[in-house]
C-alpha cells in the first residue's frame, strides 16, 4: 500500500516537473517577447530597459533557475500587458473557477444519480430510453455548441439568464450546466449500468426471496454496491472537467482562470500563459492522484498491483 502511494506521488511529481520544464522552454522558443510587444522604431535604450525589466536579457538557464525559484516563492513575474504580478491575477480569478466547478459537480451528481437509477429501474419502457437518449446527447454534444444553443434560448429568447460574466451565481448557472453536461451523461450511464449489473446478482435474489420490500432491496443492497464504479467515474470526470473549463470559461467570459489562459495564448502574454498551464496541469494531476487514493480506500477489493 505504502509502495503504491509512493509510486503514485512520485509519478505525479515527475509529470509536473516535465510540464514545468516543457512550458518554460516552449514559451521561449519563439524568441524575445519584447521584439513584438514594443512598438516598432522604439529607441534601443528603452527597449533594453524593458528587456531587462522582465529579465529577458539573462542566459536561458539562469532564467530557468529563476523561474523554478520563483515558482516556489510564488513569484511568477509580471503580466506583459497588465504589468501586475501573475500570481495576483490568478489569485483574483481562481475563486470564480472553483465556484463554477462546485456548481458543475453538485449539478451532475444531484441530477445524474437519480436519473441513472431511474433509467435502470425503467429500462424496459420509454422513460428509460428517453433518459439514455438525453445522456448520449449530453455526452456527444460539443461544449461550445451546447453553450451557443443555451445562450440563444435562455439569454436571447427567454431572457432568463445573462449570457456572459460572473457577477452573480446566476451568471455561472449556464457555464456550470455546459461544464457538467459530459460528466452528467457519464454518471447517468455508469450508475445505470452498475445498478443493472448488481441487480442480476444472487444476493439480490436472496434479498427478494426472504421477502424484503422492493425499496429496501434497491436502497440497501443494490445502490450501495453500485456506488463504487460511480465514484470512479466521478473522479475521472473531475479531471476532465478541469481541462474543459478552459473552453467553457472562454465562451462565457466568466473571469476565471480558463478564459484568462485562452486570452493569454491569443495575446502571447507568456508569463500569464505559462503559469496558467502549470496551475491547471497541477489541478488535474492532483485531482487524479486524490481520486486514485480515495478509490483504494473506498473499495477494499481493489488490488494494488505492481505494474
Amino acid at each position, binding site marked *: 500500500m505504502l509502495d503504491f502511494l509512493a509510486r503514485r506521488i512520485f*509519478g*505525479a511529481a*515527475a*509529470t509536473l516537473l*516535465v*510540464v514545468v520544464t516543457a*512550458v518554460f522552454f*516552449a*514559451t521561449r*522558443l*519563439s524568441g524575445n517577447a519584447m521584439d513584438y510587444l514594443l512598438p516598432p522604431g522604439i529607441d534601443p535604450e528603452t527597449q533594453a530597459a524593458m528587456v531587462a525589466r522582465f529579465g529577458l536579457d539573462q542566459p536561458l538557464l539562469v532564467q530557468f533557475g529563476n523561474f523554478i525559484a520563483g515558482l516556489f516563492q510564488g513569484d511568477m513575474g509580471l503580466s506583459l500587458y497588465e504589468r501586475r504580478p501573475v500570481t495576483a491575477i490568478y489569485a483574483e480569478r481562481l475563486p470564480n473557477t472553483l465556484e463554477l466547478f462546485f456548481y458543475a459537480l453538485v449539478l451532475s451528481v444531484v441530477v445524474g444519480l437519480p436519473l441513472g437509477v431511474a433509467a435502470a429501474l425503467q429500462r424496459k419502457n420509454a422513460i428509460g430510453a428517453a433518459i439514455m437518449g438525453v445522456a448520449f446527447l449530453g455526452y*456527444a*454534444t*460539443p*461544449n*461550445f*455548441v451546447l453553450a*451557443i*444553443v443555451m*445562450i*440563444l434560448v435562455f*439569454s*436571447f429568447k427567454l431572457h432568463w439568464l445573462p*449570457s456572459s460574466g460572473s457577477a452573480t451565481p446566476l451568471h455561472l448557472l449556464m457555464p456550470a450546466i455546459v461544464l457538467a453536461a459530459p460528466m452528467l451523461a457519464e454518471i447517468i450511464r455508469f450508475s445505470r449500468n452498475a445498478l443493472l449489473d448488481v441487480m442480476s446478482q444472487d444476493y439480490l435474489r436472496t434479498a427478494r426471496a426472504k421477502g424484503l420490500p422492493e425499496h429496501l432491496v434497491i436502497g440497501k443492497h443494490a445502490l450501495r454496491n453500485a456506488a463504487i464504479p460511480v465514484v470512479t467515474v466521478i473522479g475521472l470526470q473531475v479531471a*476532465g472537467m*478541469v*481541462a*474543459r473549463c*478552459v*473552453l467553457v470559461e*472562454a*465562451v462565457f467570459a466568466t473571469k476565471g482562470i480558463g478564459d484568462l*489562459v*485562452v486570452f*493569454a*495564448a*491569443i495575446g*502571447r502574454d*507568456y508569463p500569464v*500563459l505559462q503559469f496558467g*498551464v502549470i496551475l*491547471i*496541469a497541477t489541478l*488535474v*494531476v492532483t485531482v*487524479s492522484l486524490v481520486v486514485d487514493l480515495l478509490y483504494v480506500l473506498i473499495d477494499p477489493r481493489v488490488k494494488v498491483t505492481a505494474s
Partner: protein
Amino acid sequence: MTDLVSPVTHPKGRSTQRRSTGFARLWQRADRPARLYLSLFAVVLLVTLVGPLLAPFHPDEQSLLARLRPPVGFDRAMPAHPLGTDQLGRDLLSRTLHGLQLTMLIALVGSLISLVIGVTLGVIAGYARGRLGSAIMALVDIQIAVPFTLIALLVVAVFGNSLPVLIAVIGVSGWEVYARIVRAQVLSVSRQPFVEAAIAAGAPHGRILFKHVLPNVASAIIVVWTMTFSAVILLESSLSFLGLGVQPPTATLGSMVGLGRDYLASSPWIAVVPSLVIMFVSLLVLLIGDWLRDALDVKLK
C-alpha cells in the same frame, strides 16, 4: 510458415468467406441502424469530396447588399442564399461546404498522424518492452495527465495560428490512446502460440511484426481511430472556435461558429448552421465507432 499453419487453424469452409473484403462482411452483419449510420456517413464523405464544386459562391466572396440574411423560410431571406449570409454577406452554404471539407481534411490528416505515432510507439513498447518500453509508457502517462487543450494553447501561442500548426497540434493529440491500447494488444498477441512458433522458427522481427502481430492488432486500431475521430473533429472545431485555428477569412466549421458568436442575438443562424453540421458529423462518427467496437468485438481496456 503462416501458409502452412492457416489451413489447420481455419476450417476449409471459411476460406471462401475470407476472400470477401472486410467492409462487405461488416455490411452483411450490420443491423438496420448501423446501415443507416454508414449510409449517412457515406453521404457526408461525398459532400466533403464534391461539396466545394457544388457551392454556389466563392466562400470568401462578400456582398454588402446581402448582409445578415436568414436561411430560406424566414423573413428577409434571399433564395440565392438558402442557408443565409453572415455579417459580410458571405454565402453560408458555400462557407459550410468549404468549411466541412477543410475540417474533415484537418481531422483526417491529423488523426492519421497521431495514429502512426501512437501505433509505432505502442508496438515498440509492447514488442521491445524493457527500458524503452517503460520510457514510452511514462510518456503516455504524462500525456494522459496533462489536458491536451493546454498543450494546444502553448503550441499556438508559440508558433502562431496556421493550417500546418493546427494539423501538427492535432497530430500530436490522441497518440497516447493508440499507444496504450496497441501495446496491450501486442503484449497479448505476442504470447499466442503462432507468434512463439514464428519466433522459434527464426523469423526476423520485421516479418513477425508485419505478418503476425500487426494484422491481429488492426481491428483494435480501426476501432480506436473511429472512436477518436469525432474527438478530433471537436478538437479542431474548439480550437478554431477560440480563434486558435486557421487564419480568417478561411472557413472551418469551428471558426464559423466562433465568428457567429458575436451575432448570436441578432443573427443566430450564422453560428447555428455550422454548429448543427459539426454535431451531426461527430454524432454519426461516434455511433459508427460504438457499433464497430461491438461488431469487431474489440476490448479497449
